[in-house]
């Protein structure tokens, strides 16, 4: 079995996880910028983080023969300090031409606040001006449905945004229809508690067969599982899905979306 892990925060994981992923059939890993678990206090802190994502982490992954890609942004959790957010947004363009940088992400909303919306709109503008793909984080728990609605409205109101070049991640049963019907790609995140379990993820896939959907582990420093995607593949097998159907979801779909970035090289 082969798969792509399209969303993993590998800077928070050990190299044991790289080994386990490669042994499970992982062909490439994509790492969106995210919140460190504490607020960074200066734009220089972000510069170091972007260098880690674009220089150091690809080398660490390469030791396990794993191509590593990244997405750059300021996380919505860090949007309340508008002055710092502005400084970070200003330094992102220096990194966009680096090999392995796929676009702007994971941007979006966290608690659906006015400042988060403002910073989200500035990221969308940055992506549009630089013709970048966009990876969207939708809020957690009770905030997800509203946040997804707000995000879709903002994107739909910007005529420069092609929904086929935007993936809206962390969909669940109450948001997936809206995302796909608006023409966006949808990501299903396999998370032990706060997002989808493998059986629910496969339910969503079965109800949206043929849709522009991928699955990811979104593994990070919290309770999460870097092997969540292959475990969901096992769930598909238990239900009788064929190897070709599984390959479509966990390999071909991510390749189709990510190949819209000139920096992505499809694994052979």
């Amino acid at each position, binding site marked *: 079995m082969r798969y792509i892990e399209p969303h993993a925060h590998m800077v928070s994981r050990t190299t044991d996880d790289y080994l386990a992923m490669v042994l499970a059939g992982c062909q490439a890993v994509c790492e969106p910028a995210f919140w460190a678990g504490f607020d960074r206090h200066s734009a220089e802190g972000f510069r170091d983080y972007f260098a880690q994502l674009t220089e150091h982490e690809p080398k660490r992954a390469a030791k396990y023969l794993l191509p590593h890609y990244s997405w750059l942004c300021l996380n919505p*959790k860090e949007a*309340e300090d508008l002055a710092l957010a502005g400084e970070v947004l200003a330094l992102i363009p220096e990194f966009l031409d680096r090999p392995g940088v796929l676009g702007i992400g994971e941007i979006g909303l*966290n*608690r*659906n*606040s*006015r*400042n*988060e*919306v403002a910073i989200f709109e500035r990221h969308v503008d940055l992506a549009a001006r630089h013709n970048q793909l966009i990876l969207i984080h939708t*809020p*957690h*728990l*009770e*905030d*997800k*449905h*509203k946040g997804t*609605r*707000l995000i879709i409205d903002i994107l739909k109101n910007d005529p420069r945004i092609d929904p086929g070049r935007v993936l809206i991640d962390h969909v*669940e*049963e*109450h948001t997936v229809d809206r995302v796909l019907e608006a023409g966006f790609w949808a990501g299903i995140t396999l998370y032990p508690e706060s997002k989808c379990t493998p*059986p*629910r993820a496969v*339910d969503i896939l079965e109800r949206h067969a043929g849709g522009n959907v991928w699955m990811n582990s979104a593994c990070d420093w919290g309770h999460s599982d870097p092997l969540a995607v292959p475990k969901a593949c096992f769930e598909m097998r*238990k*239900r*009788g899905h064929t190897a070709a159907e599984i390959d479509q979801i966990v390999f071909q779909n991510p390749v189709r979306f990510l190949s819209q970035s000139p920096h992505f090289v499809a694994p052979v």
Partner: protein
Amino acid sequence: MQRSQVLDLYFVDARSKLIDIAAFLDRAERAEGADDYRLRAFREALSALAAQGGGANRAERVLLAFSDPTSAPVEQADGKAATGAWRGEGK
């Protein structure tokens, strides 16, 4: 899949989760104090779960029972973390 195959695969696991929910409610009700917005949302979600003939969209309706139904961005985020249930307007 046939319904019997779904049951073969998932019945025991779902049964176990249902008993966990029953025990959670017993535990909460044994404890001193009143329901808060989380337990109220939980009870609402339980009625969505128990509804018959739901067109197989119970998961969606349970999720919606916990969700913020409003549309305007909030003035300020009250902390970084969501709690799992909407507190209601103006709280």
